C-alpha cells in the first residue's frame, strides 16, 4: 500500500510536540501533551488504514475508505475525551489542595535513593536452648525467660524502625521546603487580575 507523506509528517510533528509537553512538570502542559499524543495516535491509525476513499456506506460504488480503523478511531476519540476530563479534574484538585500545577519529585523516592546503601547483615541465628524456659513445669534455675527476651527483641525492632523513620524525616524535610520555594505560582494566585474569567458566571 502507498504512504501519504504529508500525513506521516504531521503525525511525527504531533508526536514530537506531544511527548515534549508530556515531559514537562506543569500538569496543564502534560494534559496538552496528552491531547496531542491522542490526536497523533488517531492520525497513525488513519495513515495505516490505507488510501482515502468514499465514506463507508453500503451501496457506494467508489472504493471505500477502510471502515474498521474508523470504528477504532471513533472509540479512541471518545475515550481520549474521558481521560482528559479526568486529568482536568486532577489538575483542579491539585490546585485547590496545594495551589500547585506541578508534578513534583516524590520526596520519599528521592530520600530512599539518597540513602546509604549499606544493609544490616542478617543477625546470626542466636538459638535459645529452650522453647519453654521459665514457663516449664519444673524449670531449672538457669532457665531463660523467653517472654522477657521477646520483649527485648520487639523493643530493639521498634528502636530500629524509629531510627529509620527519623533518618527518613531528616532527609525528606529539606527537600520539601526546597520544592515549595521553587513554586512561583503562589504569588500570581493572590493577584486577582491574573485569573481569567471566561464565563459570565462570576466576576
Amino acid at each position: 500500500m502507498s504512504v501519504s507523506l504529508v500525513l506521516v509528517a504531521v503525525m511525527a510533528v504531533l508526536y514530537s510536540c506531544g511527548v515534549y509537553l508530556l515531559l514537562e512538570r506543569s500538569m496543564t502542559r502534560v494534559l496538552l501533551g496528552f491531547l496531542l499524543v491522542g490526536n497523533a495516535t488517531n492520525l497513525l491509525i488513519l495513515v495505516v488504514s490505507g488510501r482515502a476513499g468514499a465514506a463507508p456506506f453500503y451501496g457506494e460504488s467508489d472504493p471505500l475508505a477502510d471502515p474498521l480503523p474508523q470504528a477504532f478511531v471513533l472509540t479512541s476519540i471518545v475515550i481520549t475525551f474521558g481521560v482528559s476530563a479526568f486529568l482536568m479534574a486532577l489538575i483542579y484538585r491539585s490546585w485547590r489542595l496545594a495551589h500547585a500545577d506541578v508534578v513534583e519529585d516524590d520526596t520519599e523516592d528521592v530520600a530512599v535513593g539518597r540513602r546509604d546503601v549499606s544493609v544490616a547483615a542478617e543477625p546470626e541465628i542466636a538459638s535459645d536452648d529452650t522453647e519453654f524456659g521459665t514457663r516449664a513445669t519444673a524449670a531449672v534455675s538457669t532457665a531463660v525467660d523467653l517472654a522477657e527476651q521477646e520483649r527485648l527483641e520487639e523493643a530493639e525492632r521498634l528502636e530500629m524502625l524509629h531510627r529509620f523513620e527519623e533518618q527518613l524525616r531528616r532527609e525528606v524535610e529539606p527537600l520539601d521546603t526546597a520544592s515549595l520555594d521553587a513554586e512561583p505560582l503562589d504569588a500570581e494566585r493572590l493577584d486577582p487580575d491574573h485569573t481569567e474569567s471566561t464565563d459570565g458566571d462570576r466576576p
Partner: protein
Amino acid sequence: MLAFLVVFALVPLVVPALTRRLGRRVFPVIALIPAAAFVFTLTQTPKILAGSAPTEVIPWIPQLEMSFAVRVDTLSWLLALIVTGIGALVLVYCAWYFTDAEEGLGRFASVLLAFTGTMYGLVIADDVFLLFIFWEATSVFSYLLIGHYTGRRASRVAALQALIVTTAGGLVMLVGLVMLAVPAGTSRLSDLVAMAQDGRLDLAAPLVTTAVILVLVGALSKSAIIPFHFWLPAAMAAPTPVSAYLHAAAMVQAGIYLVARLAPGFSATPGWHPLLLGLGLATMLVGGWRALRQNDLKLLLAYGTVSQLGFLIVVTGFGTRTAALAGVALLLAHALFKAALFLVVGIIDHRAGTRDLRKLSGLGREAPVLAIVGMLSVLSMAGVPFTAGFVAKEAVLAGFLGAAQGAGGAGPGSAAGWIALVGVALGSTLTVAYSARFLWGAFARKKGVEKVRPVHESVSFLAAPAILAVSGIVLAPLFRLVGDLLAGYPNRFPPDAHDYHLGLWHGFDGALLVSTFTLLAGLTLFWARTSVSTAQAKLPPIVNTSELYGRTMTGLDRLAARVTSATQRGSLPFYLSIILLTLVGTVGATLVMNRTWPAEWRLWDSPAQLVIGGIMAVAAVALTRADKRFAAALLVGVTGYGMAALFAFHGAPDLALTQVLVETVTLIAFVLVLRRLPARLGQTHGSAHRGVRAVVSVSVGLMMAAVAIVALGARTHLPISLALPDLAHDVGHGSNVVNVVLVDVRGWDTLGELSVLIAAATGVASLVFLRSRTDNLPRVPDAVRRSLRSRLRPVRETVSAEYVPGVKDPSTRNAWLLAGLKLAPENRSILLEVVIRLLFHAVVVVSVFILFAGHNSPGGGFAGGLVAGLALAGRYLAGGRYELGAAAPVDAGRLLGVGLLLAAGTAVTPLFFGAHALTSAWFDATIPVLGHIEFTTSTIFDVGVYLVVIGMVLDVLRSLGAEVDRQQEEASDELEEGSTI
C-alpha cells in the same frame, strides 16, 4: 489412596475452627486421619507381598502427560507407613506438648496435618510433576512450621532460610524432571525407572545425565546434604514435635526416598556414584564431628541427623542389592530412633526449661521411664547389638565389605566399596561418640550443676516416644521378617554374589569386627571428651556454607538497594523519558532490521491535507512555546479541529462529526478548569533539560513515523473490511458500516469503552465532589413544576431598574431562562439567554435524530450524545448552575447506569434465546401514518451509548462547572465574613 489425599487436603481447612472449640485436645482427634491412613496402608500388605503395586490414576492434563497417579510398591509402602505412623504419634504428642494458651495453635495443628497429608502424597505419587508439587508443598509447610514462634527472630530467619534452600533445590529438580520426562514421553516415575533399567533410556546421553544430576541436587538439598546441610540445624528453631517429624522422620527423608526410588534404574548414570558417595560421606563425617561439639541436646540431634542423612545417601545410592536392603532397613531404624529422641528432648525441655546439657543434672534418676526410653533409642542410634540400628548397620557393613571384595554385582566396584566402608566406619565411630554424649548430657549427674527438680511424670506424654523406642528394640529380632516384607525393593537390583538376609546374628564376620571397632573407638572418643573438645575448638570450621548463604543474601539485599537508589529518582519526567527511550531503542532496533518498505510513495491524497496538516503542525509547535493557558487550550483545539478536517477528507464523516463535537466539549471543559488557574503557565524546565527533552521527543516522533511507514508497507493482503459493507447490510441491517461495526460487529469493544467512560466520569466527580457524587445540582423552586398548566405559564422575574434602561421602578418581565434571576445582573447576557432558549429544545431533538439516523447515515449514539451534551453545556454557560439543574433534572450517575444497563442488556439478552451474545434481531412492519418502519435491536445498544455519553458530559459540567462555582462562592463568602469581623 487418592481419597485419603482429598481428606488430608480438606480437613486442615476446618482445624483452626475446631481448635477454638477443643483447644489442644484437637490433636488426638486429627491424629485419627494419619492413623487411618496407616491402617489402610497395612491392609495393602498382602498385595505388596504378592509383588503387585496398587495404582490409581486420574487424568489431569493429558496433553502434557500429567496425571494424578499414585502407586504403592514396596518402597512407597514402607515410607507411607513411616510417614503416617510417626505422623499420628507426633500429633498425639502435641496434645501434651502445647497448652491451650499457645499462640497460633489452630494454625499449627492445621498445617501439621496438611503436612502429613502432603508427605503421604509425596511418597505415593507416581507422576513426577505430582511428586514435585508435593515436594515443594512440604517446603512451604515446613516454612510455616519452623516459623511457628512468629515473635522470635531466630524462628523467622531459620524458616526463611530453610524455605529458600529447599525450594531452590526443588526448582532445580523440576528442570531435571522436565528434561527426563519430556523426551521419554512419560511422566510416570515407575515407567521412567523401568525405562532406565531396561536400557530404553540412554543414561550416558548428556541430556539424561544432566537431568539426573539436577534431580539429585533437589534430593540433596531436601535431605540437608553438604553443601546444603546448614539449613537443618537452623530449623531447630521449630517446636520440637516439628523437628521430630519433619527434620528427622519425614521431610528430610524425602531426598533419601527419591534417591532410593531412582537407584534401581539410574545408579549407573555417570557422576551418580562420585556425587552421592563423596557428598554423603563428607556429610556423615562433618555432621558427626559437629554433633560432638554441641551443648544443646536438640542441636546435637540435629547435627546427628545431618550425619545420618549422609550415611543414608551413601547406602541408598550405592546400587547393590545388599546395600539397597540395608538402605531401607536403615531408613526404618533411623526414623524410629531419631523421632523418639527428639520427642524425648521435647519432654526434657518441657520439664526443665532448658535443653543445654550443661544445665541438666540428675534427670535420669528423677525421670527413670524417660531415661529408659531415651536410652533404648540411643542404643539403636549407636548401633549397639540387638537393636534395629545394629541390624541395619550390620547389613550396611556387610554390603560394603562384599562390594569391596568384588561381590557387589552391579555396584560401583571394589574401590568404592573400600572407600564407603572406611568412611562409614569412621562416621559410625563419631555416631557412637555423640550418642554417648547425648545420653550422658541428658540424664547423668554432673558435678557442680544444680539437680533438676522432681516432678510427676505424665505417662501419656511419654507414650509416643516410648512406642517408637520400644518398636526399635522389638523389631530387631523380627528383622528377618521385615527383610522378607521389604524384599520387593532390593530384588529390583541385580543379585550380589552372596545372598544377604537381615538378622541379629551373622556369626563372627568382618561386619561384626568393624562394628565392634566403631563401638570401642566411639566410646574412647567420648571418654576423652575434654581433650577432643579442646582439639575441636582449635580447628577451623570445616565446611561453612552457611556463611556463603548469608553473604549471598546480604549481597542480594545490597544489590537491590543499589538498583533502587539508582533508578528511584522520584521524578516522573525522568521515569517517562526512560520508558520512551526504551521504546525508541527496542522498536528502533527492530525497524533497522526491517526489510518491508512500501512499494509506492505519494505526497498527499489531496492538496487540502497539506494545508490542514501545515496549520496543525504550526499549532502544535506553537503549543510547546505557549505560556498562556487560554492560548494553549485554543492551540490544542486547532489541532483537534484539524483532525476533524483530515477525517472528512479521508472519507470518514462519522469521525469528523464526532471529532468536532468532542473537541468543542473538551474546549468547554478546559475553559471551565482554566478559569480557576492563573493565566500564565507557570513553571517550566530549566533550559538544561530542554535539549534532552527535545531529543527524546523528536526521536519518538521519527520512530512513530517509521512505524507507520513500515506497518503500511507490511500490508500485503486484502483488508478484512472489504467484506464489512455487505456484512453490515445483510446481518446488521444498516448502511452506515462504522456505526454497525460499533454497535453490532464489534459491540464488545464498545461495551468496554462505555465502562471506561463511566470510570472516568466517576473519577472526575469524585475528585471534585470529595464526599458524595449523588445528584446535588441546585434546583430553582419555580423549576419544579409538575402540572401541565403551570408548565405553560411563563416564568416571571424581577428586574431592577439599574440594569434595564427605560424601566423606572423594579418591575417584572417574562424570563428567557428559568434560573436567570439567580445570576448577578452584571453577569447576564440577554442575547445569550435568548439564543440558548431558542436553540436548546431544537438541539435536543436533533441529537435524538442523529442517534436514530446513525444506523444508515452519519451519526449514532456517540455523536447524538455529544450534541445533547453540548445543549446542556449551553444552558449552563448562559444560566449557571441553577440553570443546569433545571435543564438536567436527571442525575448523571443514573444516566450512566441506565445507559450501561441498556447496552449490556442488549449484549446479554440473545443468550436467553440460544443465540450468541450481541446477536442482533431485526423487525420491520408497516404502520399507518409512519409508513414502513425497520428496527434492529442494536439500536437499543446505541441508545445505551447515547445515554452514557450524555451522562459523561453532564458529570463534567456539574463537577468542573457547577461544583467548582459553588466551592468558589463558599470560599469568597468565608473571605467576606472574615473581613467584616
